[in-house]
């Protein structure tokens, strides 16, 4: 059974005070503003509840309102606060961080950022945590922002599936991104974020240099962001528990930093959150933005937002979920309120990966609601639902980069994790949202697919299972033929036609359209939606014995995503009865299993050519199992069109006054992950600070 919320109200870890009322908001806003202002004019005091000259009855107001507390919203909030502005962050979820909290915390910048320079000089970090020498030679990290910009807009580089990950990156955006990479890295480090040694480069973050560092904390007796420490309990216990602090187990970062270092996105998120709260950023959680208010429907300045109450409740205890820390929280519970943004509104609410209606505009097969975005349990059904993009469109914002959803393997893929709907992460019991998923899932390597057959919603195989979870890697440093780049590392030539010549492509092509095959229409796909339906890994006791799978709780649960049966026929019946998206019977499952076993007897698989690369095994030893295979749409590309200052543009290409965006809510870049969003937030916050007059 999943654990209940791991802290009682009286055990929560307040940094300073508890959550504030509206009246206290004014007092604390003033105090924090005077104490934390670092730039420009004095912070104006936020006021609550009044009618402005535009006739709108505002319930709250602040200089800057940020929608979303994730990788773009949080840096923006801190930058604006550093400039002395009052900042209110609203988030539909009950806690800070968005997907950043469950990420790997791996951040690729470059252009001569402080971590590169540190490693080039052979130095440790300022706190002396890093004990290992640099992992790369200096020449693999030496670059400037011009070089980085060329790398990120290199039209010639292809991945092994023939996709061009850098060709369509918006030039203005990536010029601004490259120019701000060094400053953003420093900004993060100035706000309690610790980075390991540079180790490699992230997917879609360039071929030519090593640019990635991972965020970490040191294991210690107490969780102390200022000291840079986290307890083992808060970091998670491998195979046993996650925590409210870190929804995923923080693994050892010894090979990148030092013994006792642990890493993932919790180190990044909690560091930024701590800093934001310390500086007086206010947070209104459980609050979903529903409307952007503009002076005129499609013209004039953005004035603020309306937002509704969006609490989440533990499905077992029915208690409202609460954030880890509460200082600076505004606990507003009215159904709908209006919040005025005196200077700027920043949309950092994530992308559209969780919205089947929206995402299927660009990949029709993904209209299937069974398959969710990463962080489905962590963020709830309102996370990544395209709402920030849609509300922007409603007031005239245009879109950019929607085609960049296609062909990026980090985006949508088949995870190597079975038996959980939230297949992107391996969350264990201990985090408040674990009760929503109830199972961690069975995490496999690609080699383990040798021991199962995969079937669609009507019980038929659809692809060579050994290739099912393979995904083509992004052409990143150090490049080389295996990643689709003719010449590795320093030999690589930017923007060279030889990188994408037909002869080269024929030689290096190694794409696996497994996801397309998995989500293809089948006999169970009915109009008007033609859903492809759920996918199932079918295996038996022999699989468990051979490959040592752990199918005990919490890795599996009685949650409709894992079934056990005495016979194959019974297994099909259980799936049909017990899975919420199994719309048709798995009428072919028994025949599929029989046919598969006959192929094993024959030593050849005429359907999908297994048996050439790895042994085949019968599925014949009871009990028989079915575990869900859930494709995940991790991060989306394409959203509100922004310029190099993070300002949102309308259909005429004009800036919408007062409106900003970044991260997955914005479009124009193919860069995966935190590197893009963090810089966007930094840019937007910096621009807001410049325009505050």
């Amino acid at each position: 059974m999943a654990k209940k919320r791991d802290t009682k109200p009286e055990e929560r870890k307040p940094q300073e005070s508890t959550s504030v009322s509206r009246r206290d908001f004014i007092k604390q806003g003033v105090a924090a503003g005077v104490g934390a202002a670092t730039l420009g004019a004095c912070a104006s005091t936020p006021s609550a509840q009044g009618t402005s000259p535009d006739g709108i009855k505002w319930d709250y107001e602040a200089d800057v309102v940020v929608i979303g507390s994730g990788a773009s919203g949080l840096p923006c909030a801190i930058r604006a606060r550093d400039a002395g502005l009052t900042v209110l962050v609203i988030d539909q979820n009950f806690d800070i961080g968005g997907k950043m909290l469950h990420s790997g915390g791996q951040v690729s910048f470059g252009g001569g950022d402080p971590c590169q320079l540190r490693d080039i000089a052979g130095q440790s970090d300022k706190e002396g945590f890093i004990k290992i020498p640099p992992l790369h030679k200096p020449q693999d990290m030496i670059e400037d922002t011009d070089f980085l910009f060329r790398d990120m807009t290199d039209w010639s580089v292809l991945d092994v599936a023939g996709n061009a990950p850098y060709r369509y990156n918006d030039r203005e955006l990536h010029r601004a991104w490259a120019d701000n990479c060094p400053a953003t890295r420093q900004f993060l480090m100035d706000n309690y974020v610790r980075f390991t040694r540079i180790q490699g480069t992230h997917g879609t973050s360039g071929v030519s240099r090593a640019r990635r560092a991972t965020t970490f904390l040191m294991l210690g007796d107490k969780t102390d962001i200022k000291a840079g420490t986290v307890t083992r309990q808060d970091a998670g216990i491998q195979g046993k528990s996650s925590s409210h602090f870190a929804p995923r187990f923080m693994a050892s970062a010894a090979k990148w930093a030092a013994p006792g270092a642990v890493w993932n996105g919790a180190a990044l998120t909690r560091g930024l959150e701590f800093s934001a709260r310390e500086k007086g950023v206010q947070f209104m959680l459980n609050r979903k933005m529903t409307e952007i208010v503009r002076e005129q429907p499609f013209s004039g300045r953005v004035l603020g937002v309306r937002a509704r109450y969006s609490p989440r409740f533990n499905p077992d205890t029915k208690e409202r979920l609460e954030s880890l820390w509460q200082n600076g929280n505004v606990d507003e519970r009215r159904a709908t309120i209006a919040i005025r943004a005196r200077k700027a509104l920043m949309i950092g609410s994530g992308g559209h990966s969780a919205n089947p209606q929206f995402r299927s505009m660009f990949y029709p097969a993904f209209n299937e609601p069974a398959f969710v975005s990463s962080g489905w349990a962590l963020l709830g059904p309102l996370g990544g639902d395209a709402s920030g993009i849609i509300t922007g469109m409603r007031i005239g914002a245009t879109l950019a980069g929607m085609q960049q959803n296609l062909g990026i393997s980090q985006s949508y893929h088949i995870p190597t994790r079975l038996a959980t709907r939230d297949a992107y992460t391996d969350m264990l019991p201990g985090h408040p949202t674990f009760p929503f998923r109830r199972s961690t899932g069975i995490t496999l390597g690609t080699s383990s697919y040798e021991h199962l057959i995969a079937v669609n919603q009507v019980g038929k195989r659809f692809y060579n299972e050994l290739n099912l979870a393979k995904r083509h890697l992004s052409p990143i440093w150090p490049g080389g033929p295996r990643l689709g780049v003719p010449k590795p590392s320093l030999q690589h030539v930017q923007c060279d036609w030889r990188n994408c010549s037909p002869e080269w492509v024929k030689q290096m092509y190694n794409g696996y359209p497994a996801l397309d095959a998995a989500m293809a229409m089948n006999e169970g796909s009915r109009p008007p939606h033609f859903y492809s339906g759920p996918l199932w890994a079918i295996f038996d006791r022999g699989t468990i014995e051979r490959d040592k799978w752990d199918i005990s709780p919490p890795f599996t649960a009685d949650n409709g995503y894992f079934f056990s049966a005495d016979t194959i026929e019974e297994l099909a019946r259980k799936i049909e009865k017990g899975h919420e998206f199994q719309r048709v019977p798995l009428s072919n499952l028994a025949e599929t299993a029989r046919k598969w076993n006959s192929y094993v007897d024959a030593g050849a698989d005429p359907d999908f050519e297994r048996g050439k690369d790895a042994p085949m095994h019968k599925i014949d030893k009871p009990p028989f199992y079915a575990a869900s295979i859930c494709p995940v749409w991790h991060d989306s590309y394409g959203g509100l069109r922004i310029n190099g200052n993070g300002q949102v543009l309308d259909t005429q290409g004009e800036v919408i006054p007062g409106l900003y965006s970044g991260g997955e809510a914005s479009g124009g870049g193919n860069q995966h992950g935190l590197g893009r969003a963090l810089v966007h937030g930094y840019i937007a916050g910096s621009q807001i600070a410049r325009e505050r007059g």
Partner: protein
Amino acid sequence: MKDEAEAGAAEPHAVELTVWDVPAAAEAGERFAVSVGAKCSAGCDLAGRELSLFDQKGYVVGTVKLGHDIWPGTEALYFAEVEARAPLEAGSHQWEAKIAGWDAELPHAPGSFPLIVRVVTPPDCEVTVRAIDREKQTPIKGARVVMHPYRAVTDDNGIARVRVARGQYDILVSGSQYLPACASVEVTADMITSAELDADQPWASPDEDPE
């Protein structure tokens, strides 16, 4: 009871069979054993019910009564081990396991399950395969070795001995959490070979590219 009896009269319980542990390569004329299981759709006690194996021509080649125990991990799968003698002709033979229906007490429908018995001529060569972790240069226990239709599993020393007939084979070797390896060999006499395997790495999430 009355309702159940009426329901039973109208609809016999289905009996589903399953068969496992069929040898991958049974030597011609040699005795072998397979496991058979049966489950009633309503979970009825099937202990003592008779189950038979029929060969390709429809002759009974083995009979057994289901035991009283439930197969571990199942809800109501009664099982037994039945012995039979492999045909003398090499090749694939289509057999069938059957259980007759019965009307006493609650009616049960008959059930059947097809199985393939692959018969080979007696092997005359032994291939010794050693599975090794390429990086650590340590033996891999429990690795699967397939030289179709022959199979074996490596022991604590990472060694498997596969008895095969002379001929051309693809040797497939895979270990738990290792990427598989494959090589082609011509077996003309006893031989020794090794397979170096690379460790597989589960991706915790796409953010953590192994690159």
